[in-house]
């Protein structure tokens, strides 16, 4: 299970941070999404799936 953000298309909306604050953050330099935990434990996966769904730029992926 690997979480990724395609930063080339990220708009910095922060929806992933709202969905899974333990897994995602926004960079202080440019506001873009960053992955804090690339291989999250099972209890964080529902939040990650929510982030994948909510991301308005559809740049968050979870490879299962």
């Amino acid at each position, binding site marked *: 299970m690997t979480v990724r953000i395609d930063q080339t298309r990220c*708009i*910095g*909306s*922060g929806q992933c*941070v*709202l969905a899974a604050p333990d897994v995602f*953050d*926004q960079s202080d330099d*440019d*506001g*873009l999404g960053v992955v804090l935990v690339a291989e999250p434990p099972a209890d964080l996966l529902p939040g990650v799936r*929510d982030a994948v*769904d*909510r991301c*308005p*730029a*559809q740049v968050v992926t979870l490879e299962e």
Partner: protein
Amino acid sequence: MTEAAVCPVHHERDHPLHPPIGFAEAVSDGPVRMVWPNGVEAWMVSSYAGVRQVLSDPRFSTRKGGQPEMRTDNGEEVLDPDQPGNINGIDGAEHMRLRRPLSRGFMVKRMNELRPRIQQIVDEHLDVMEAKGAPADLVASLCLPLPSLVIAELLGVPPEHQELFQATAGDLFGKNGSKDEYLAHATKLAEVLTPIVEAKRAAGTNDDMIGLMANDTDFSMEELIFLCIGLLAAGHETTSNFLGLFTLHLFEKPDQLEVLRRDPSRADVVVEELMRYTVGQLGGPGLTRRATEDVEVDGVLIKAGDWVSVSLMANLDEALCPRAEQLDLERDAVSHLGFGFGPHQCLGANLARAELQIGLRTLFERFPNLRPAVPVTEMRYRNDMITYGAAEIPVVW
């Protein structure tokens, strides 16, 4: 495909909190052709999947120029299609150039840092409302001043300019004027903003939004001023309307208001559900795109060059959540489209969330018996092609 029926876009409602009459029926069978009051024809897409597709597929452009909702009823263009800094009228890399620096200013953690200040503004305004006594107009007492004060501080308008700034911005956004009036007020606001921007540029600071745009980007002065006006417009109209509409929906549904009263700490989830439901019930068309290629949406072929509007009635689609037509404040937050979707999703969504959560929670904590002074159906409402809300909400407590 067969040529679909053409129905008119209109905003007549049989109840101020319900969708325009006949709208749900007109759009229920998938994309239909609709004629706007200014004569422009556009497809109307209203399914959850369809709206997500239109708002996120790069083959639908947001480039202005003839766009139905950006024209007055007599067909006049409200905005120059090439207006520099019009972030909602550009796509792709050009859009990203403007959007990304702004996103930084609206980061979730930055919005969370603002919460104590938002709370303070809410408390001060409710103090004044209480001291003056009932009845009060909730729109003038809280809904309007809250977002406009917050956005002015976030932008970094210095205290000595605040009064002039608020008055000028109020003239620009407070009423539905003609195009000439709009331009005159916009010019005046630009005159207020220009020296502020120049001062930030000279100081080299980036600790507020204007400073960040003035010093950490390649934005031109013209882009910068127009972006400020855009941020102000969004700050004035939308959050203010929604704080009012949320309150009205709660007045109309006492069992749901009870859910918030019972556990005000769930204000974050409550605001998501109110946003989903309220935007869904507004129903009418708003965001418009233009197909740059032939694209199929919900089984209908949309041809290159066609206008496509989305109805956020999609928030009431059962594909999003069960019993989607009901307001259910006990529901967990779902991926609603209340802030739009795609690269142009509301830039200020996280700020709006903070204001709505704090505003709504504090309002009903401070005034547990808050109720409308006149029936919701007898209040005055403001409606133009893009925004809708109560002009006044007389309340007692």
